[in-house]
């Protein structure tokens, strides 16, 4: 891929990316289009934005979306109550509405004198109309504030990263404007690289045993929530902190609670895969 003076994202020291993902990021930066990231929970969708910000040494602005979030809130909020309240005491200049226009995350990213990385996290949580309401703003990178008769135009197009868990269908018009990447679950080789970023001095045999157990757990289709990267990291941290000898990992699967977060999965695992106390079989291999 040619550089051409464009920001070249190469990953950062604490976040391992695959090449297709790096390319997707670079293309989205170069074309100035939002990057839509989907993937299993725990595969590092949100962390990607952090990594881009660190890798390119830019400020990160995070807009967390909730079910009640309105598109307008990302642009600006006109704080009428504050203004009304201030007018009572007369200690602030109430005639200037500008003091009471508070820019939202998107507005701040536009107004920022330097380019920022804007993370719009879990866009699918919001109302079904939400993405459509932002279409124009993300396209033109500007919006109008009627109260002050001002147009906020992006000084630098922010690098927009949007994550989604794909629980709801996003509108086609919205999708058409995005660059899309699906983060696949890492293959063991990549996973090893990821783990080593977090634990540079991990012992080889501990890692090997833990990975073997982890990937065989992932093969159990009956789980409602399969353990993912972030769970593996937590588990390894617990294993290291607990000083568990590597030969016990497959047999006992200690700290299973860090891997399986749903009670039904936990029960299922205990009753189907773990041998009773005193037994030596441990987890069944497939």
């Amino acid at each position, binding site marked *: 891929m040619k550089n051409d003076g464009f920001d070249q994202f190469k990953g950062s020291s604490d976040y391992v990316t695959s090449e297709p993902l790096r390319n997707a990021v670079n*293309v989205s930066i170069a*074309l100035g289009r939002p990057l839509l990231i989907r993937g299993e929970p725990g595969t590092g969708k949100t962390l990607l934005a952090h990594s881009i910000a660190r890798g390119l040494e830019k400020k990160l602005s995070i807009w967390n979306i909730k079910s009640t979030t309105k598109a307008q809130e990302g642009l600006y909020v006109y704080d009428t109550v504050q203004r*009304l309240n201030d007018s009572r005491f007369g200690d602030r200049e109430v005639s200037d509405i500008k003091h009471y226009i508070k820019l939202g995350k998107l507005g701040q990213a536009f107004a920022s004198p330097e380019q920022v990385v804007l993370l719009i996290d879990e866009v699918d949580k919001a109302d079904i109309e939400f993405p459509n309401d932002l279409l124009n703003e993300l396209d033109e990178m500007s919006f109008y504030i009627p109260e002050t008769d001002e147009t906020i135009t992006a000084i630098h197009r922010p690098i927009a990263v949007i994550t989604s868990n794909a629980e709801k269908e996003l509108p086609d018009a919205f999708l058409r404007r995005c660059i899309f990447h699906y983060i696949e679950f890492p293959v063991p080789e990549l996973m090893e690289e990821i783990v080593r970023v977090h634990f540079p001095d991990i012992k080889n045999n501990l890692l090997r045993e833990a990975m073997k157990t982890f990937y065989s757990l992932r093969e159990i289709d009956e789980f409602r929530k399969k353990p993912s990267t972030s769970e593996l990291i937590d588990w390894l941290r617990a294993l290291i902190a607990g000083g568990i000898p590597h030969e016990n990992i497959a047999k006992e699967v200690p700290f299973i609670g860090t891997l399986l977060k749903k009670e039904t999965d936990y029960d299922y695992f205990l009753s189907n895969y773990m041998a009773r106390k005193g037994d030596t079989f441990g987890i069944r291999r497939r």
Partner: protein
Amino acid sequence: MFTDFFYTLRERKVPVSFTEWMTLMEALAKGYITNLDEFYFLARAILVKSEAYYDHYDIAFQEYFNGVETPAEISEQMLDWLKDPLNRMTLTEEEQALFDNMDFDDLLKELEKRLQEQNGQHDGGSYWIGRGGTSPFGHSGYHPAGIRIGGESRGRHAIQIAQERRFRNYRNDLTLDVRQIKMALKGLRQLSRIGPEDELDLEETIEATAKNAGEIELMWRQSRKNAVKVLLLMDVGGSMEPFALLCSQLFSAAHSSNHFKDFQYYYFHNCIYDNLYQDIERQEAISTDHLLCTLEPDYKVLLVGDAKMSPYELMEKYGAINYYERNEIPGIVWLKQIAEHFTHRVWLSPENSCYWIHPTVQMIGKLFPMFPLTLDGLGQAVRKLVVKK
């Protein structure tokens, strides 16, 4: 270049739009691609918006680029050389005819061959790879079946083809999908003030402040929330089998719409009798009487079914198609009770309205306003459901 790839993708049912294709062209024009691998991932990132279509994309990619292995150097050299389009040149008729019947594979083989022979930039002329000219390789040239490398597309043929095909493919956009159904269902709302008082009532505040001689008095009120409760009753199995996909789309749209105050759904087969069922297999029964007693009349009722059955299934005691149901009360009486209990009700039929001339459809149509399960029909039904009575 690659225009056929766009159509290969669409043939493989990858929902690629023109906008996305133009984005890809923009990326290509900026020279981000140096080899086929990068093209694969870049094109996928821009064109495919759901992992569900990755597989379709792969198939299309294989189909189009079958056996093509472009050495990385080719396009790198090309893109360097071929930045700016030259003026167009004209071809004689003989030349047109000469080049018309070359196919893609031949062209590629020839490209590799000539690339080995060629060792410098070349514009014009009819053999070497370069700008202008009539060689089948390069860009801005006038070779009708040529492979474009870099530059912008100016081919008249390509534009015509694109226009012809775009209209044909537009029809895909008209099919009902979950999102469209959800949008239609959004019309099902009646806002009323419920919940905590968390919204500033501006008018009341002004009023109160004025009364208070200018001392500010903030007045709050409850925010408006949707108070609509929905009951969905679906006919499953038998004659409804062909419409299973459509019905499941309606169901998932209604089920995932989070703006209803309450959403309940039950299944039946052909007609409603003593029991409704909580699962499609019709194992978990709940008595229709119980529903009529517990659900308030202000539930909006959507019945989905083809309403087609033998007249005795509707009219007779013990008429149920399932012999063991042994219904003491004919189906039509049950339906009438439902129709009388709920003030707002519609019947959605997945069949086109021209097939509604059928005795049981006519009878049920008298109890429930009937609409076809299309986008329009659903829209009309929703309007019927929110009408004030």
